[in-house]
């Protein structure tokens, strides 16, 4: 059994973004999704600091100090892109104008609760940024994360241990082991990596898993 790399998780999530979708990519793992949009699809990326139509990172020497992304790194704008002020940027988020919000997570619960804003590290002041807006407002919230923590604890839990970002919002989770849908009937396994059995996946996941009748092996290329 070979888990997906971080880039492969991003690749897998990118395959599900339909042509014409307006999408916000969270900081970290979700940011990689922009590199794997299938050819022929136009996806408009939104940035919370007032940008629609975010392009790839500029080449060295071509960065504009007034154009950054949500991670405060240099950004570029595609033809058709636009700038607007913060209140409109968050109106787009909060008002359900984005088709997808792709977020990282510390933990997700079996009922779609999301914890991704604080690990309560006493060494630092807390920060929330746009995490709660992005989790509460988009038409659909999807999460990309490793299936377990570094010390092997499940990230998909009965209940989140870390403070919540939003309750009952996550509909799909892409991990290095599986693609999971969260719905009224609980957690449904849509895809698993080759060589992984449902019992082994269950052992790394707290909520009871159901295996979709038409489940598939994740066919991720080396990216």
């Amino acid at each position, binding site marked *: 059994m070979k888990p997906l790399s971080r880039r492969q998780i991003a690749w897998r999530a990118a395959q599900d973004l339909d042509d014409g979708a307006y999408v916000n990519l969270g900081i970290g793992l979700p940011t990689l999704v922009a590199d794997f949009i299938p050819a022929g699809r136009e996806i408009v990326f939104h940035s919370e600091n007032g940008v629609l139509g975010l392009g790839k990172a500029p080449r060295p020497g071509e960065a*504009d100090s007034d154009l950054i992304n949500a991670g*405060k790194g240099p950004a570029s704008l595609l033809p058709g892109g636009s*700038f607007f002020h913060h209140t409109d940027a*968050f109106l787009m988020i*909060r008002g359900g104008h984005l088709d997808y919000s792709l977020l990282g997570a510390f933990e997700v619960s079996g009922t779609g609760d999301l914890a991704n804003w604080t690990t309560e590290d006493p060494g630092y*002041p807390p920060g929330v940024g746009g995490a709660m807006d992005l989790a509460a407002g988009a038409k659909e919230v999807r999460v990309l994360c490793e299936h377990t923590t570094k010390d092997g604890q499940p990230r998909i839990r009965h209940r989140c241990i870390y403070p919540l970002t939003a309750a009952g919002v996550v509909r799909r989770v892409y991990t290095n082991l599986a693609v999971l849908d969260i719905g009224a009937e609980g957690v449904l396994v849509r895809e698993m990596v080759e060589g992984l059995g449902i019992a082994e996946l269950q052992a790394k996941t707290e909520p009871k898993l159901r295996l979709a009748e038409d489940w598939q092996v994740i066919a991720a290329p080396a990216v």
Partner: protein
Amino acid sequence: MIDKIIGSLEAAVADIKDGATVLCAGFGAVGAPDELIDALQAQGARDLVIVANNAGNGRTGLAGLIASGHVRKVICSYPRSTDSTAFDDAYKAGKIELELVPQGTISERMRCAAAGLGGFYSAVGVGTRLAEGKEAREIDGRLYVFEKPLKGDIALLKADRADRWGNLTYRKSARNFNPTMAMAAELSIVQVREVVALGAIDPESVATPGIFIDRIVQLGGKR
């Protein structure tokens, strides 16, 4: 004749009082009025309440104002950044108060103050620690919490161009919080790269109409 242009940074901030609530625009360093904030630090007003997205980085601008002990409280969404030691140190030492607010909620609270509204119900933060103690209300089957307007005594802003009436244009993602903060304070002060003749800004391109601006300082500098 209307002429809002002030000859120096010092004169522009001279009458800001101790205890003032100061809205400071910017997303990270982009669109942040660092020169005005440095002038405010030199002016010496104390016990300031700062409303901003972040809490400064490096040694100048907001970080300098915090490091020199002029700030009593910061209302922001994300105090932590690559070099936010000024805030981090003051926070750890218990010398500064932090009110953490989701990014879109900060922005909308200011917009509400600007629009003369008494607040709004938002689904952002529902079920989380940041909504504790707030009035909750179910509207058409969804749960919301009540958020109060947030008004500034002063707004410190950065724009690209201004005319003497205070009509403003911005550059790229440097627009961010500037237009909302310009509307939400009793007195709005803007630093600009360039002052142009009245009528030189295309009326279709005015991003902040002059009614919201009280003082303009021209800094010059590269575009």
